């Protein structure tokens, strides 16, 4: 009978997640006009913000034992979310087939933007080899492994990728949710382009971004999720290879070239962040 025993010893964290999630849902959707464009905030972003804001309080309530199960709990929640997103793709396979040329080219090309915007900004700000680790991908788990193997995670490149990873984990979804809604409200891109762009390889960033688009275009919610979800699946499958063979070498050379241009000597590329 011991197999039937239901393990509820982590009830504190379960209750915390329930309380924060339900509060976030109760807050609902909020719109703020920015003059140029609109900022949208919605329940999942409120849940993240509430969790971050209440963390000093949560620290007292939750023991180390509770925190130790958060990775497993995150995984279970992500599994359910992925199941739901994929179930939205099923009925829209025709749309996916239509969009496939865009999806394919985007997969190879979007790392250009990662490098082309990230590296110059980093060099302008005087950041050294950290920039290579930070600017070759949006740094999900796979990227940590790539840099860890090539440079080691304690190297400057390793510090860069770790920073990007942590920043993305804490603020990525928040930033994508706000940015996607804002860019969409500018009216430059079609909704489908922005939906596909949402699939950057991180489930939380993708879902925040497509939720913002769905709120702005309620009639297209299912198409948006299908396109974003599919783009995300493709990136999760192929992104690692693109980053190893294309974007990491590219970030490396681009950084070296730009630092030489800026510093006028080879020493510039070795300068540290600190």
């Amino acid at each position, binding site marked *: 009978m011991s197999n039937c025993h239901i393990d509820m010893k982590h009830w504190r964290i379960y209750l915390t997640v329930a309380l924060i999630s339900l509060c976030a*849902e109760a807050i609902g959707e909020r719109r703020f006009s920015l003059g140029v464009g609109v900022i949208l905030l919605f329940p999942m972003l409120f849940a993240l913000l509430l969790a971050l804001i209440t963390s000093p309080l949560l620290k007292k309530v939750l023991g180390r034992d509770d925190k130790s199960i958060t990775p497993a709990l995150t995984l279970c929640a992500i599994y359910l979310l992925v199941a739901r997103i994929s179930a939205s793709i099923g009925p829209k396979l025709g749309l996916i087939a239509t969009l496939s040329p865009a999806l394919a080219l985007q997969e190879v090309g979007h*790392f250009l933007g990662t490098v082309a915007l990230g590296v110059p900004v980093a060099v302008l700000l005087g950041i050294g080899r950290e920039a290579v680790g930070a600017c070759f991908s949006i740094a999900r788990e796979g990227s940590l492994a790539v840099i860890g193997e090539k440079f080691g995670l304690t190297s400057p490149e390793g510090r860069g990728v770790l920073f990007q990873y942590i920043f993305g984990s804490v603020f990525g979804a928040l930033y994508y949710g706000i940015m996607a809604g804002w860019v969409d409200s500018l009216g430059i891109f079609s909704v489908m382009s922005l939906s596909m762009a949402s699939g950057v390889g991180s489930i939380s960033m993708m879902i925040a971004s497509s939720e913002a688009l769905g709120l702005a275009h309620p009639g297209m919610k299912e198409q948006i999720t299908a396109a974003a979800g599919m783009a995300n699946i493709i990136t999760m499958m192929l992104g690692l290879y693109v980053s190893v063979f294309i974007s990491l070498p590219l970030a490396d050379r681009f950084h070296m070239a730009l630092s030489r241009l800026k510093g006028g000597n080879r020493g510039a590329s070795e300068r540290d962040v600190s």
Partner: protein
Amino acid sequence: MELLREMSVKLAVIALISLGGNFIATGTSPLQALPGMALLLAIVLAGVGTGRCVNIKAIPVIIFISLAGIISTASFVPWSRFTVPLIESVSISSLATPVLCIAGISTADEMKRITSMGIRMCVVAVAVLSGTFICSAVIAEIIIRLLHL
């Protein structure tokens, strides 16, 4: 089996929270959304099970769950008439809220490390995130316009 038992409580807790969130956000009663949620749980278990059987390290479990999810509602399968309405009774947002909530709880400690690396690295991080999104959108937009998709 051990893995399944360990996962089942957590999956059930998340499912319950999502049903509650779904009710608050959309007004769909938890009982009405329960069959859809049960189907989603079945998809997860099917995906995890397949992943275990195939056991190739290079393919993450999430890919198998995705495949199971797509097959469960694809327009070419005969059962999609039944599965699609069931699943649509559970909003995506109500499943995403707990994910970001747990992410917030587990990453709150990392805030210190972010501030210690300085504002310059934060600017770079934002540039990387923006560049990826914008470039992706530009490429998609060009293809869509060129091919009149």
